[in-house]
């Protein structure tokens, strides 16, 4: 251990780089403390005590215990296999770090550290992975190179001790680590080689298809959001609302591809919709919950859309002419429910990551089929507002002008009191119903929002008092009046329904962390939200958010961290877009962009020679449009191309030279042989054919003896002696062959050519 201080440091750095972020990502304080504590103990023991911190027998017990825990996690705790394996590997590395390590153990722990990278790659998409990769390509590579030398020397010493007892005195007392300069040189060379080859393979390798070898999903269960489930139950409050875990990102543009300025708090991205409040007292789904009655609708209210060339229209273009649009570019982690988030109403979908989707005409929810990649990209075009004519179109698609009001089923236990509240709120609108139903409904909805936003009600993420057998929404409205967004939205929808106004609860994401560098919103779990859509004639479904503004407090980082957080988000966004979500379309875009960039100096020249000439001219002459940065890039590109051409030329030249030399040598040998054989070249063919049949003349036999033996053993080679005799006559007797003899020999050689070893053996 003490002979390799640099190696020890490398191990500490690598292990910390992977184990600590993994422990943080799992939100496990215990694991984090264990990891940090063990690493700290190892470092202190190495620096101060100069002795291992853990005895070998105890280390073995700990490794066995870690293995046992792996089995427990996998079998009983249903932990994701890859994550459970990572726990074991980290425990293994920590134990090795705490012990007195032999070269072999150091190598083992370094290799396991590298395997942890695989785990990180599977479970993480964070930009931290990139930083860990850089660390491994520098520190890790250097450690591996040093270790290799030590291991190799150890092997040689061990061998020498075994074969010669005199060598023990010669073996060096200490060890010699790799020098600093050569270590840096080799590490740099190795890292550069890995990056260049790695980048080429990464960019060019095909993305064949999802799951062709079977299901390999390490993230089952890792994603779940508030409300994006088959029902909205108040018994299961998610704690994800406070999590900063990224769900995806969205960039908003208008129809002119300019940035779309969305009013605070940001875009409302719809996920699922629930339109009936119902209760059940039996079975797994006992309790009260909001459900989507769309499951019971007739299939004709669903529209199946196939993407053609990556695009599908959800409404006829003629219906939506002249309406202003919002283009949303999403990059999302695919959830188990395969719901596409979108602003309401979505009119077009574009994506290369899926080929078809279903759209429910009642609630406009977009569903996907089949297995998706872990990260999907798509574009949604939505209308910015719903003009009256489009409302009519949507109503027509729905198949009815007014949606059905879905009252709670069964009726609420305290329905009379809820109806009293409804009456009170109606009276508070101070607007007669008969004046204008649409205006009245809007006023009523606003009144509800005002009521729920008053000081009577309080927003909280804490669980409300246990409902017991009480119906939770009534309890919220009439008793405790405290809850989170789902309560507020559900209560408003209920109050609207009791007034005869169609209303539904919508779950999804609201807003996001806006990144001014990349002009996009980062959607996190904490942005999950519920709101209400109320049907207002001539306006279709209108969005209302009854949740008090208090929960809209920006939970952004402290101001002095905001800039850093913004940069970090931006890097994470670009990392996710360029690397994590890299696919065939990205590659096409990349090449297209590169080709466009390359063509800029060339101008309009079509001919390749003129283009190259124009490019070279632009390198040497100043063109005002090309700034210094671009010019330098072009120069760099030109030099790289030149180097590649020279290298390829060199390689092909050497190969050509080899081939030429080999071919010339064969030609010379053949010519020499021909000069010797002269007219007896048939003998060369005869020999070659015999060789291919596995028959070679032994050194102690003359050709005639060999031919005689062949004729004796193989009846099909009975003419062999005559061929040899003819050869003797031609080569040594300077005689010629008669045409009949030539024909006879050719016929024999022809027969020989069609013979194969199996036939020959059969006739022997």
């Amino acid at each position, binding site marked *: 251990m003490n002979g390799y201080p640099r190696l020890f440091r490398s191990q500490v750095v690598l292990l910390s780089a992977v184990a600590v972020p993994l422990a943080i990502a799992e939100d496990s304080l215990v694991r984090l403390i264990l990891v940090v504590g063990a690493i700290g103990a190892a470092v202190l023991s190495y620096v101060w005590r100069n002795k291992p911190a853990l005895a070998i027998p105890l280390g073995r017990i700990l490794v066995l215990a870690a293995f046992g825990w792996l089995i427990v996690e996998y079998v009983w705790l249903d932990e994701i296999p890859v994550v459970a394996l990572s726990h074991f590997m980290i425990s293994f590395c920590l134990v090795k770090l705490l012990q007195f390590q032999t070269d072999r153990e150091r190598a083992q722990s370094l290799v396991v550290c590298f395997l942890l990278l695989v785990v990180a790659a599977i479970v993480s998409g964070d930009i931290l992975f990139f930083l860990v*990769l850089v660390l491994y390509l520098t520190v890790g590579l250097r450690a591996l*190179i040093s270790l290799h*030398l030590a291991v190799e020397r150890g092997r040689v010493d061990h*061998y020498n001790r075994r074969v*010669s007892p005199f060598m023990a005195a010669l073996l060096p007392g200490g060890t010699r680590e790799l020098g600093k300069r050569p270590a840096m040189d080799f590490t740099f060379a190795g890292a550069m*080689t890995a990056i260049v080859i790695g980048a080429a393979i990464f960019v060019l390798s095909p993305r064949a298809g999802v799951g062709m*070898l079977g299901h*390999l999903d390490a993230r089952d269960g890792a994603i779940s959001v508030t409300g994006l489930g088959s029902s909205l139950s108040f018994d299961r409050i998610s704690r994800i609302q406070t999590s900063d875990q990224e769900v995806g990102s969205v960039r908003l543009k208008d129809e002119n591809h300019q940035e779309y300025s969305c009013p605070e708090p940001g875009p409302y991205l719809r996920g699922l919709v629930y339109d009936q409040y119902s209760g059940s007292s039996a079975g797994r789904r006992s309790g009260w919950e909001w459900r989507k009655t769309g499951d019971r609708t007739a299939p004709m209210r669903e529209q199946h859309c196939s993407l053609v060339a990556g695009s599908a229209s959800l409404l006829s273009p003629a219906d939506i002419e002249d309406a202003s649009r919002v283009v949303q570019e999403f990059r999302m982690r695919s959830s188990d429910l395969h719901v596409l988030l979108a602003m309401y109403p979505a009119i077009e979908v574009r994506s290369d990551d899926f080929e078809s989707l279903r759209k429910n005409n009642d609630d406009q929810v977009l569903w996907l089929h089949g297995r998706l990649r872990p990260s999907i990209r798509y574009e949604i075009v939505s209308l910015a507002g719903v003009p009256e004519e489009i409302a009519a179109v949507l109503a027509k698609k729905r198949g009815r002008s007014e949606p059905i009001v879905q009252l709670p089923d069964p009726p609420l236990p305290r329905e009379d009191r809820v109806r009293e509240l409804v009456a009170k709120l109606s009276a508070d609108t101070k607007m007669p119903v008969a004046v204008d139903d649409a205006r009245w409904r809007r006023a009523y909805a606003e009144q509800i929002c005002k009521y729920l936003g008053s000081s009577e009600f309080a927003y909280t993420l804490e669980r409300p008092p246990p409902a017991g057998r009480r119906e939770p929404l009534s309890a919220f409205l009439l008793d405790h009046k405290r809850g989170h967004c789902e309560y507020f939205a559900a209560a408003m929808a209920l109050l609207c329904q009791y007034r005869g106004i169609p209303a539904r609860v919508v779950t999804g994401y609201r807003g996001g962390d806006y990144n001014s560098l990349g002009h996009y919103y980062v959607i996190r779990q904490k942005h999950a939200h519920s709101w209400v859509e109320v049907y207002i004639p001539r306006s279709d479904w209108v969005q209302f958010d009854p949740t008090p503004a208090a929960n809209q407090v920006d939970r952004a980082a402290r101001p002095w961290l905001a800039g850093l957080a913004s940069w970090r988000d931006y890097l994470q966004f670009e990392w996710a877009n360029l690397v994590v979500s890299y696919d065939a379309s990205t590659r096409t875009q990349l090449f297209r962009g590169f080709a466009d960039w390359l063509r800029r100096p060339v101008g309009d020249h079509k001919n390749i020679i003129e283009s190259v000439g124009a490019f070279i001219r632009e390198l040497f002459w100043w063109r005002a449009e090309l700034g210094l940065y671009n010019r330098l890039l072009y120069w760099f590109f030109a030099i790289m191309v030149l180097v590649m051409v020279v290298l390829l030329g060199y390689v092909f030249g050497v190969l050509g030279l080899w081939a030429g030399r080999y071919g010339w040598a064969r030609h010379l040998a053949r010519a020499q042989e021909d000069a010797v054989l002269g007219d007896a070249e048939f003998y060369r063919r005869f020999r070659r054919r015999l060789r291919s049949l596995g028959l070679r003349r032994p050194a102690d036999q003359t050709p005639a003896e060999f031919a005689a033996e062949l004729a004796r053993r193989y009846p099909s080679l009975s003419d062999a002696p005559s061929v040899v005799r003819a050869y003797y006559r031609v080569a040594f007797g300077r005689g010629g062959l008669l045409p009949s003899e030539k024909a006879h020999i050719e016929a024999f050689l022809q027969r020989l050519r069609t013979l194969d070893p199996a036939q020959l053996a059969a006739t022997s």
Partner: protein
Amino acid sequence: MPASGIQGPGVAGKPSTSSVSAGAAAAETTRFPRSRWALLRSLKITFAGLLALIVVILIGLAALNSEANLLFLLFSLSVGLVVFGAVVPLFMIRWIEVERVISRAAVAGRVLPVSYVVRNHGRWGAAWGLVIEETAAASFLHLPRGFVQELPAGGHERVELLAHCPRRGRYPLKGVRARSSFPLGLFSCEVVFPAEAEIVVYPALGSLRGNPWRDQRWADAQTSRQRRAGLAAEELDGLREYRDGDPLRLIHWRRSAHAGDLVVRDSPPAQPTQLILLLDPWPDSDFGGEGKPDRRRKRKASPVDPEQQDREVELIISAAATAACDALERGHRVGLIARGQVPVIIPPGSGRVQRQRVLHELTMLRAGSPEMLDELVSRIRWSSGWHARCLLCVSELNDQHRRLARFLSRRAEMVSMVAPGTAWFDSVFIPAPPIAPEASSERRGP
């Protein structure tokens, strides 16, 4: 007194330098850098490389299956590292040359120094992690491996190693291999330098207590031999005039009186004594009749341990070699009759050449002769007769050996039996002890 004989490398001549085919002996064929194609063919994947490749392939498959781009990224970076691990040793090993420096002769059980001179002919770029080893492992001769951690461009390093061969014999060496799997140990590239050589390992040489050749009986025997030759103790070969400085005791007073001048005895040159070693190291497999085992010796119960038997054989050969070397060093003449696959008969001789010859034959001695030792001896007709001391060295005394001893005792001056358990073996012969190693290592840069 330590047994003489091979003191170390160089006794048999200059240490042999087994150069590479591109070395000095064949400079016209030296070509650097080596052929890329040949090096490419010598590129091998190590076990660690195989594991790494499997893991990389699995990551690639997982990436293809799950379309996880980060796994793609990891896969592609890993492929880059694997390529890096394959290319570096190829470039490094191209410029390496290795030369072996080793003695042609060695003694069993003693240290055998081996040096490898490693040169880096490259103009830039050091070579790292070079392992130097022999290509073919000869039985009982395992030469250690050399390791060069760093060899700068244009530099050379001499790696000194100490080999050990426990057994006598002739060991051919085929060539030297230099390989490297730097930097990641995933691939190994090697280059082989044909460097044929042969090392002859002589039997282990022990020592003898005292001077066993000064035995009184042998001196008496020598005297009686001289008497039989008609030489009285007083009768000398010649007289000469007294010279200043001659010891007074040499003055022959009677002759001086007759001659009227001082005359001294001129002592004849001492007749060299002869020692004939008769060696039958392998126990007779035929236990009927002639080859019955010695009942007086406590033999191990059957089955016979082959390793123990082998050790005894080597010990007896070592004893014979020790005796021969000691006698030759003291100026005696030594001959050898040995029973082996090829029977050995060396007439008595002296000097360095005789020592080489005797040791060489003892080195090459192998079992498998159908002819018994007494039959071999009976065919010999020495011109000078058996005027020698005979040392009958056997690993297992039997009746045949005793008969032979009786035969020799009628013809030779003295016969001694040397076998494990005899007085000569136990009290005179000291087997070769192990020797502490010593060596050095030096390095020069460009």
